[in-house]
């Protein structure tokens, strides 16, 4: 039965191959892309959540923030 279902789709064996290639291309482009990113910019981005806020309170008893 499963065989019948498979055969009823024309050229079904190409599907996994297409998906693999899609992913590989996607992945390679990604890696090339991010490897060319600017270091300074990456550093800036990573600092975004850490920018000082108006109300800096330490969150734990007995431990004060270093700021």
């Amino acid at each position: 039965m499963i065989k019948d279902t498979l055969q009823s789709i024309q050229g079904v064996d190409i599907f996994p191959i297409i998906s693999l290639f899609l992913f590989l291309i996607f992945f390679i482009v990604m890696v090339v892309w991010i490897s060319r990113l600017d270091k300074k910019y990456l550093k800036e981005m990573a600092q975004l959540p850490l920018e000082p806020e108006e109300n800096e309170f330490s969150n734990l008893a007995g431990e004060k923030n270093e700021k």
Partner: protein
Amino acid sequence: MELEKFSYDNGIVRKFALATVLWGFIGMLVGVLIATQLFMPALNFDISFLTFGRIRPLHTNAVIFAFVGNAIFTGVYYSLQRLCKARMFNDLLSNIHFWGWQLIIVSAAITLPLGLTTSKEYAELEWPIDIAIAVVWIIFGINMFGTIFKRREKHMYVAIWFYIATWVTITVLHVVNSLELPASFMKSYPIYAGVQDALVQWWYGHNAVAFFLTTPVLGLMYYFLPKAANRPIYSYRLSILHFWALIFIYIWAGPHHLLYSALPDWAQSLGTVFSIMLIAPSWGGMLNGLLTLRGAWDRVREDPILKFMVVAVTAYGMSTFEGPMLSLKNVNAIAHFTDWIISHVHIGALGWNGMLAFGMLYWLVPKLYRTDLYSKKLANLHFWIATLGIVFYASSMYWAGIAQSLMWKQFDASGVLQYPNFLETVLQIIPMYMIRMFGGTLYLTGVVIMMYNLVKTMKQGSFLAEEAAEAPPMDKKPDRFVKGLRHRWLEGKAAVFTVLAFVAILVGTLVEFVPMFMVKSNIPTIASVKPYTPLELQGRDIYIREGCNNCHSQLIRPFRSETERYGEYSKAGEFVYDHPFLWGSKRTGPDLHRVGGKYPNLWHYLHMENPRSMSPGSIMPSYPWLLTNDLDISTTPTKINVMRTLGVPYPDGYEEIATDELMAQAEQIAEDLQNAGIPAEPNKEIIALIAYLQRLGTDIKASDLSENK
């Protein structure tokens, strides 16, 4: 540049945080109750609203959408405002989102125990609630994108990308999986049937885990872990890769929930291949989280918040490694339908989601209340008790799952099943069920300790509803365009970013769905497979209402151990009239696909009244109300009509004679029972259920199959 003054809305953050804690407690309490029912069936109390089949979905929905859902919104509403340097787009929308979501949770808590369910896992809620979910979700989207568009910080931090991907994907998942045709207020049938319904459901189920329990929580990790550790994320580069690879690959892996099922082989293989590939981005993300703490591990020893987060990220790594392993066919053959899967999902739920939510709350509540945490000691106690709870929970379920699976597959020297009685394999793992309940109770105790600690913290601090802030307006100058297309350009363009994320998830969806739906007309119909009779259809709806599919599968895999135990393996063509499919995902009880004709009507009658009268030691709940409830036959014509609209070939005008046919079949069954000495009446629900059970799997006989060959 001149600074603009504004304020952050902390009120909405507090509301979601309180809801997180409250629903977390309730959801886990229900979890402990159903865990206890599994070795103490008396705790079903013979009350329909409290039976396992009805409240197991309540547990899953409560922890996923109420506990984790509210935790996500807490974190999103807090971090999004800070990362965008802007107040939420609209306070009214924030509040509609909050109250709407809570209302949906309450309606789930009412309808699921009433048995109003679609039977599709994690999508059990009926169509009016589905619509409400869509509306509230879109309001959340407008509010989120509105905030993003009016932001003062040009670049979107990685956490925001995860929020965007979450919103886009959940929208698509919810709409596609909820396409259903109402038969009445609170009853509907999905437009898909059988194999296709199964594929859509597990595309949804898998990606609900991916895009509701994973991506938004990763967004929280990328924000709150650096916050708690007070240092930037280890590698921003890695986070970009993590994001794009994860959302691109995740969507393809759904079919791994259907290995060895009647789903075509190519789709199954696709699911496996992409599951294995998922290890790469998942572990990239985990390492990114853990390495953020490099050089600060001494603080992990001191700080319970970091402890929670380290265990969370580690659990994320463990379950994202285990998941791909479980999708290998040979591992899946052992693990599927067993408690191993229950263990796997709880590593994710208790470890990853729970611990990260707790860590976030311990960090956030003192912040909102401008004070210190009431007791670091209690937080540490919570941490250890929760970790211990997870260990008890997971180890007992691994043991139970593997032990039971091996017993199912064991043949003796003469080549017959060594444990032909399913119940024997259940009784073997009862002690493990007790240990699991103990582990769950420990975890819940931890939550109670946290509640106390947080309330005390709130009492000693003063809540800051409007947090004043200032920032320069967004710099509209375009970035200099060097070195081709760059991610920083993308991060300045929220709309383009959203479209790309949408395309990324769409590719996988289309490759899976297009062939499946092209096959629609081609699924080999088996000539002897006929639509259900009206009585069987009503019986099927009772099966759905009682949530039988939570413990019984209807899918016999092509293994000798299964065909010996249950009969001929299941074929795709047998399910063409099943709106919805009822394959199930867990065998707490035996498979029922070929139960038709296996026992006399009398057996079913007595078994439903009290399972222990027929199978001493059985852990199935009793269903005495089925024997006394009158069957509602007024719905029959509508149901026939709806089914016909969905493509089930009932002849024209059949709805007019359907009720008569129903009564005739019911009287036959009642008469058979009366002959056996049971004063059964034909108009009771039990009769319809028996009709359905006796029909199951009888459409094809081994002889039909050999003729077809």
